[in-house]
């Protein structure tokens, strides 16, 4: 678990044999067969639906499509949305009922840090209650960010690295724009409007 393992290398030859390390093989198998338990509590659920539906197809492509609504049959807990104090015992119990090896993904700012619910109602991030592997910021995160998060988790599973990881923003429009504002123009207008 300490030293990150190399990814799977299949040294094949004509006779059809491949050699690898057992851990690497297991990691490779696990990362492509994640069974998710969706713990969906709030508005991020809408984005979760967008992610899993055909346009983004964000889970089936990564072998993580099939949901299991029993924690005993799942190995990836998606915490999607705000976790209220009242719900924290439920979340913790679900997590404890899952079989090892198990991973947790915090979908959205609320699950990651409580978001703007900075008050008595909300758990300030699920890591206060259960361990968390990948944090995906965004309110809600775009499907691309979630796909980044899922791929990050796959890398972590393959390498056996259990340290928490954060999805970095691909592009922050506010920092990128000249005067701090995002400007949307029709195509062609920027260059003088000849088109």
């Amino acid at each position, binding site marked *: 678990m300490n030293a990150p393992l190399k990814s799977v290398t299949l040294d094949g030859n004509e006779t059809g044999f491949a050699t690898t390390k057992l851990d690497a093989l297991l990691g490779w198998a696990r990362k492509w067969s994640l069974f998710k338990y969706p713990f969906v509590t709030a508005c991020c659920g809408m984005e979760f639906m967008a992610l899993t539906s055909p346009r983004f197809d964000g889970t089936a492509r990564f072998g993580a499509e099939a949901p299991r609504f029993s924690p005993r049959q799942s190995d990836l807990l998606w915490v999607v949305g705000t976790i209220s*104090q*009242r719900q*924290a*015992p439920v979340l*913790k119990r679900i997590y404890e009922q899952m079989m090892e090896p198990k991973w947790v993904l915090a979908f959205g*700012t609320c699950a*990651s*840090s*409580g978001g703007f619910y*900075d*008050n*008595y*109602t*909300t*758990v*300030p*991030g699920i*890591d*206060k*209650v*259960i*361990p968390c592997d990948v*944090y995906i*910021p965004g309110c809600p995160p775009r499907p691309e960010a979630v796909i980044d998060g899922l791929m990050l988790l796959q890398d972590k599973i393959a390498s056996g690295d259990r*340290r*928490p990881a*954060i999805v*970095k*923003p691909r592009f*922050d429009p*506010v*920092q990128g724009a000249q005067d701090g504002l995002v400007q949307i123009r029709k195509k062609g207008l920027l260059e003088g409007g000849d088109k």
Partner: protein
Amino acid sequence: MSQAVIQLLRQKFGAAIVETHAQFGDDTAVVESSKWLEIATFLKNDPACAFEMLSDLSAVDYPERTPRLEVVAHLYSLTKGHRVRIKTRVGDEEGEGAEIDTVVGLWGTANWLERECFDMFGVNFRGHPDLRRILMYPEFQGHPLRKDYPAEKAQPLVAYRTDEEAGMSIDKQAPFGPHEGMSFARNDWTKRAEDAN
């Protein structure tokens, strides 16, 4: 709009109507808390009022006033198409002893609305069939929408993990902030208030 209803109330209940005013298009009557149920019954059953619907029932905390809590009910008449707002004031400076009669017998929806009002403000409704907390959990202490409840005071049901258990800092600000390339960070409002002073 519903001036006629206010007139009727004044005629019928006289001194029990403490004051009346109109705001945002709704006529309001502030009534004696002891007459709350009687007036509500009249408003529902009198053919000239006919308020079949209780749109909302809530409370407001005015810490500087005595009585401190104000229970507000919004009524609407489906047949007459008019509205009225009735209020009553309860509780001492600490909000203790805030108690009025329930109106569950008149409007079924009052059941959950009064439970919410009890949960958030600590108003007791005499005769309510099931006066329990509705939003917060039974272990919760205090009434969070009272102005003297510190908004950030959480009462976790599950003990938070410590940094040692987590093997990393799980302070609220992490993992989001300027260091992760985000252009926002959590505001420390308490600190900002101190800096301003």
